[in-house]
């Protein structure tokens, strides 16, 4: 009897780092093509709409880059958190916390104009960090599961913001529940040489090498990886798990908060309940596809930004529901996770022997 066996690998070949995400994405697209066909559309046509239109004109290209900026930041937020095995699923809430922090300062008239952008960016990072520190503190102090708390805190924050936008912080001139707009001077500047790219895109772009440096060239980065890979060994080496988790959470939340600040300062100029189409959750998929490597987050974020940008157009042109993009996100997360098996194992085809026959 022919039997497929997984065999442990001792080392991971370097080419796999690039091949696996591509393999995973290809598998996801093939799996999802059935849904496109089910919706009565031509698969190649729909995928072309989904992935090519976002790059077809300069305008579209910049739109994709603008969407990629928050995704880079939430992807980095998840990557650093997961490295330390701090299961931060709360990127969405931390993004909104950052948006509120940035928008609050952006409406303040007493701030000198020269300070307003850095103040907004800093406020966004601090608010996001604070919102992430809460579950980290609950975990280190009371052993409360971080997955559940980070998720529940998303709901809590969104209800809180909704209450603010309905009441004390409502824009009196708007029929919709939105915050007052930030001052015109607080709107992020457009980067020279571009039509629409705002300061937040630059922040996201700079965050990639900075995070890579922190993770790979600093003692803190070493502690993060040590705690994530083997907390007990890290403790023997004198690394405090609790302190590392708290610091990681703060950094992770700050990155997600920066995404919120960018959306307020560069895109919406105010806070509203639908500020983010789930950037925080997409960050999880992006971080996994990047294998939690900051440098990989950039291309992965661009890919998903393109998909989010292209989904509306694809839906209009082919009638396939926009939610195809959500399904592809979920499927690609699972195919990537499966593909990661090849970093640890290789597939061997062998005849089964009695000892393995019962393995289900």
């Amino acid at each position: 009897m022919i039997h497929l066996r997984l065999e442990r690998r001792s080392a991971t070949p370097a080419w796999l780092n690039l091949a696996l995400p591509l393999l995973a994405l290809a598998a996801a697209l093939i799996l999802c093509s059935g849904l496109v066909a089910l919706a009565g559309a031509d698969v190649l046509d729909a995928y072309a709409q989904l992935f090519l239109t976002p790059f077809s004109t300069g305008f579209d290209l910049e739109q994709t880059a603008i969407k990629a900026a928050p995704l880079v930041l939430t992807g980095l937020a998840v990557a650093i958190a997961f490295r330390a095995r701090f299961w931060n699923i709360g990127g969405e809430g931390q993004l909104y916390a950052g948006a509120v922090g940035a928008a609050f300062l952006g409406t303040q008239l007493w701030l000198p104009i020269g300070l307003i952008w850095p103040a907004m960016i800093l406020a966004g990072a601090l608010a996001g960090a604070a919102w992430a520190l809460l579950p980290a503190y609950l975990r280190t102090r009371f052993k409360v599961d971080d997955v559940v708390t980070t998720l529940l805190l998303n709901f809590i924050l969104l209800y809180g913001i909704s209450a603010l936008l309905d009441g004390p912080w409502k824009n009196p001139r708007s029929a919709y529940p939105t915050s007052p707009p930030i001052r015109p001077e607080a709107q992020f500047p457009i980067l020279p040489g571009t039509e629409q790219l705002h300061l937040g895109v630059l922040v996201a772009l700079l965050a990639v090498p900075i995070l890579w440096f922190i993770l790979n060239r600093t003692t803190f980065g070493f502690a993060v990886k040590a705690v994530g890979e083997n907390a007990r060994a890290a403790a023997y080496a004198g690394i405090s798990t609790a302190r590392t988790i708290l610091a990681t959470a703060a950094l992770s939340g700050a990155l997600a908060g920066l995404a919120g600040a960018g959306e307020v300062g560069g895109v919406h100029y105010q806070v509203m309940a639908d500020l983010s189409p789930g950037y925080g959750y997409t960050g999880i998929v992006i971080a996994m596809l990047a294998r939690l490597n900051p440098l990989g987050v950039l291309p992965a974020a661009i890919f998903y930004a393109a998909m989010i940008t292209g989904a509306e157009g694809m839906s209009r042109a082919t009638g396939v529901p926009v939610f195809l993009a959500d399904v592809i996100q979920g499927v690609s997360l699972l195919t990537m996770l499966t593909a990661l098996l090849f970093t640890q194992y290789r597939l061997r085809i062998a005849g089964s022997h009695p000892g393995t026959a019962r393995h289900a």
Partner: protein
Amino acid sequence: MHDLLAQLLQVGFFAALIRIATPLIFATLGELLAERSGVLNLGVEGIMLFSAMTGFTASYYSGSLWTGVAAAAATGAVMGLLMGLLTVTLGLSQHVSGLGVTMLCSGFAFFFYRLIFGEPSQPPSIQPFRALPIPGLSDLPFIGPVLFNQFALSYLAFAAVLLAALALAHTPWGLSLRTVGENPRAADAAGVNVARIRYQALLLSGALMGIGGAYLSIAQYNAFTFGVISGRGWVAIALVVFGQWQPWRSTLGALLFAFIDALQLRLQASGLIHVPYQIFLMLPFVLTIVAMALVSRNARAPAALLIPFRREER
């Protein structure tokens, strides 16, 4: 204050409490079975959402609510098996697998709903379940209307908890499942097929979550909406911890959560306290986290939770 409480805590309040608790009881029990076998099922939120959608759709087209329940249970069971494929057969990270299943299921729910129903101005609706009074018992004072004039699915929820508690504590299958969750190597040595037990637990887990999801779209409400679950699945995970992985304690947790939820609904409706309604909606989530903080220090999860079992490796 006394008057306020008297006004709130009437028969209708406790009847509503049971209605609100029902989907949580299903989901919490499902999560508990998976975790007791050693697998964290983070797919719960998405499984509930997708099943709420398939349950509603099946009811809508068949005209039979029980067909809807069956469709939802089947949806959940299939997704439970997918969790099994990922976490048991492939031994992948339970955290990421569960999040992936939730994303996949949410995507499916939205995609297929849009595909089937398009974008109507009025969401399609059905004639939902009616309360099923139990003859004789429903006439008892207070207890009757609270406990014995509920949806059939609510009785089913309590029956499922009873059955699961008995099965876990007193059957060979329950013993196998508990051992697999605590010490899979010992279970394996004793001749228990670890993978099979975990698949069975995940199948049941998904089916229960599915029924919990469908309850919302075909009993409590009469339509499927994108926000129909809104965090109930995540709450179920918290309730399992709160209940220390014990069926009745977790059910008690679900009832406590429902108590707070019913209370906030009453307070909102009473108009006696002038606080934005969102604060009321937030309250059960805040208290869930507080409860987690109180119990988590002494909580002891199944020892093999999160750890994949590979027979050939030691």
